[in-house]
């Protein structure tokens, strides 16, 4: 039987990807960011997953205004890095797990989560920056990755509560898959940031730290945060944090926080990262 043994959350700031790609990780500005991931890099290398279900958002790369799926599950064998306007990131192709993805799609749709099945899709920094943070710069990614893209670009994203319940449906799907697979679920994006308008640069450390402290022991409390509160308190792009609740919903009620990291700033954004033990 497949089982979810750990969860991970991280921001997916594009400038972090650029710092890795351009060899700037040891510079004084960036070093504290990358040091915050050392524990998890080591832990994951010692307990590697077969598959990661990676919750992220597309930033007008694979999806434009032509098609805007709220939840889109990547069911292909392979996903290439997208050209986001300055050429694709120099990272390996992402290999999917089409069989498990098809099983999840069938299971969650019958469980009343009507997601979109995507068999052709490029993946942008939202998906590849978290992989780079945890796995560095390998010739091939060390495991399969099932992309789960969530619309957080056009308002409204799905509610935090809906995301949490969707995560629970994903857990039921994974647990009913017959093959022995070690699965991690990653929730990415956030933390507080605003990239637009005269209020750009907003960071709310109190909000972020409360979110980091609460998502382990009491995620249900976080599912009650309204969209207005996210927008007002964590910035217009901080609302990406609903994606962390999909990850959390896929884990057990009780989890152990193995690692917690918070840092301001990476470019315009507060960086938050957690590693959660689900055994």
């Amino acid at each position: 039987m497949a089982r979810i043994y750990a969860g991970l959350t991280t921001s997916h700031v594009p400038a972090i990807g650029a710092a890795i790609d351009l060899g700037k990780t040891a510079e004084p500005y960036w070093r504290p960011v990358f040091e915050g991931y050392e524990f998890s890099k080591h832990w994951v290398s010692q307990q590697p997953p077969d598959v990661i279900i990676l919750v992220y958002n597309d930033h007008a790369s694979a999806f434009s205004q032509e098609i805007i799926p709220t939840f889109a599950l990547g069911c292909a064998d392979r996903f290439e890095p997208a050209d986001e306007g300055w050429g694709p990131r120099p990272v390996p192709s992402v290999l999917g797990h089409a069989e498990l993805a098809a099983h999840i799609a069938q299971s969650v749709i019958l469980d009343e989560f009507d997601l979109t099945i995507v068999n052709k899709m490029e993946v942008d920094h939202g998906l590849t920056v978290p992989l780079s943070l945890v796995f560095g710069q390998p010739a091939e990614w060390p495991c399969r990755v099932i992309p789960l893209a969530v619309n957080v670009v056009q308002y409204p994203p799905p509610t935090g509560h809906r995301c949490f319940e969707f995560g629970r449906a994903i857990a039921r799907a994974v647990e009913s898959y017959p093959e022995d697979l070690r699965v991690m679920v990653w929730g990415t994006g956030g933390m507080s940031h605003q990239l637009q308008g005269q209020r750009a640069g907003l960071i709310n450390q109190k909000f972020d730290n409360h979110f980091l402290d609460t998502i382990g022991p009491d995620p249900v409390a976080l599912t009650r945060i309204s969209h207005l509160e996210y927008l007002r308190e964590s910035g217009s792009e901080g609302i990406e944090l609903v994606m962390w609740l999909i990850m959390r919903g896929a884990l057990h009620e009780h989890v152990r926080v193995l690692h917690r990291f918070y840092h301001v700033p990476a470019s315009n954004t507060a960086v938050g990262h957690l590693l959660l033990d689900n055994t």
Partner: protein
Amino acid sequence: MERQNDYDDIPGTTVFDAERARRGYHLNMFCMSLMKAENRAAFKADQAAFLQRFPMTPEQREAVLQRDWNRMIELGGNIYYLAKLFSTDGKSFQFTAAQMTGMSQEQYAQMMLAGGRSPDGNRSKSEWKDRG
């Protein structure tokens, strides 16, 4: 008639909702076209002519030519689409964010290093009344 939304009270912030997305559709699709190298080249060769390929409003075209980011957002642009435009210019998110706030990039970067813009005093338009 313009709909009133609870988030309209947040100062200096334009929520990219369904109505704004509708208004900005062609502006954003122009930006999407810049993901292709040949379109980037054609745009750089003659910006005004390239913009004629898209049924945008004259105001949207003018905002693009002026690189008036706040105006593009007001006219339905979304930052992740506009990113294709400033990337074509060789500019970063931080450069563009600084422009939108009216700060120099240096001032903006310093603000971020000091912990970013506090939410205190920036939650409601009523708190911005005294600003020019």
